[in-house]
């Protein structure tokens, strides 16, 4: 959870300073480009996601994760579940068939802490989720 003040301007480490004095809280969201996702190895990617989510952030991956990577992520998550970290919420657009109908092309995956994010509706082109800031 990040805190900032005001309605505009830039600050450091998630603190926004501007004209107003009202303190606001929010969730940090990391949107990772396809280039960055593809440059990482599988384990590096999963570690990056899990570290982000355990810090309370929402991680959005352009290009997404394969089904095998998602299964591995579930396995890694289970190793780290404890009283304070209850797991992840993961949602993604289904993969599209690629070249010669062999390779599946993933599209986008969004992962967040289970305690803060809940998917309420999902179909092949739409993900609706509630993100709690409390």
């Amino acid at each position, binding site marked *: 959870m990040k805190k900032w003040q005001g309605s505009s301007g830039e600050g450091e480490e998630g603190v926004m300073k501007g004209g107003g004095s009202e303190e606001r809280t929010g969730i940090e969201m990391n949107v990772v480009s396809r280039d960055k996702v593809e440059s990482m190895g599988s384990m590096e990617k999963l570690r990056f996601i899990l570290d982000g989510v355990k810090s309370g952030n929402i991680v959005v991956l352009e290009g997404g994760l394969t089904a095998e990577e998602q299964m591995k992520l579930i396995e890694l998550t289970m190793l780290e*579940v404890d009283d304070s970290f209850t*797991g*992840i919420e993961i949602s993604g657009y289904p993969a599209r068939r690629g070249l010669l109908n062999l390779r599946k092309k993933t599209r986008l995956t969004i992962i967040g802490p289970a305690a803060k994010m809940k998917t309420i509706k999902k179909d092949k082109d739409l993900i609706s989720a509630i993100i709690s800031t409390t």
Partner: protein
Amino acid sequence: MSVRKRMRGALSRLIMALFFRKKSVKIGIYGPPNAGKTTLANRIIHTFVDDNEDMGVATEIPHETRRVIKREGVLIDLKRLILNSNSNINSNININISSSNRNRERGTRRSRGRARLMFDIVDTPGLATKIDFRDFMAYGMEEEEAKRRAKEATEGVIEAIKWLDDIDGVILLMDSTADPYTQTNVVIIGNMEARGIPVIIAANKIDLPDATPQRIINAFPQHRVVPISALKGDNMEELYEEMARVFR
């Protein structure tokens, strides 16, 4: 997994299937918690092995099964079952199914009564992405017990995932009263497709008034979906026929 690895995996499976057919195959029952996996495993054992034998305990509390349970040497023999007029089988269910499923249904009916399959049944803990001990406390458990169950449940999920490496076929069980389009279901199907492992989707709990198996059929049109009630035994014969056809 690269395309080359997938091709190699599919090819080796094909060669194994053609020249080294196993006497017995391992069939895993997978799905989210509370889909009815243990109830289905118990139903199969009661029908084909022993009416007094249970694979596990089924309750309304999620993650009741927290260890993989295997039962070897189960023989599906519908010819013998029909001769014995087993009263558990009831296929007279009027279910509104899509045309593609109806066509496959006709093919299945042609072989009705002849299905035979020897297999090991593997009942697995429910796959989940989150496990909160506080959810168990809502069922009246003390905090310490709830925490212990949550810990065991996380280990169960890992064990179920590891078992995918040893499984020859999967029955993916879904709850017909719940939204089928969950990421867990999508991930299981995606993994089975990548490994070239055959999958049958069983749409369970069709005995409940708010069950809509058609939603599952619509969500996964590329897979065979068999609507069943593992608890009441509805439409089980069709599932056994499909298992014999797909997993042999």
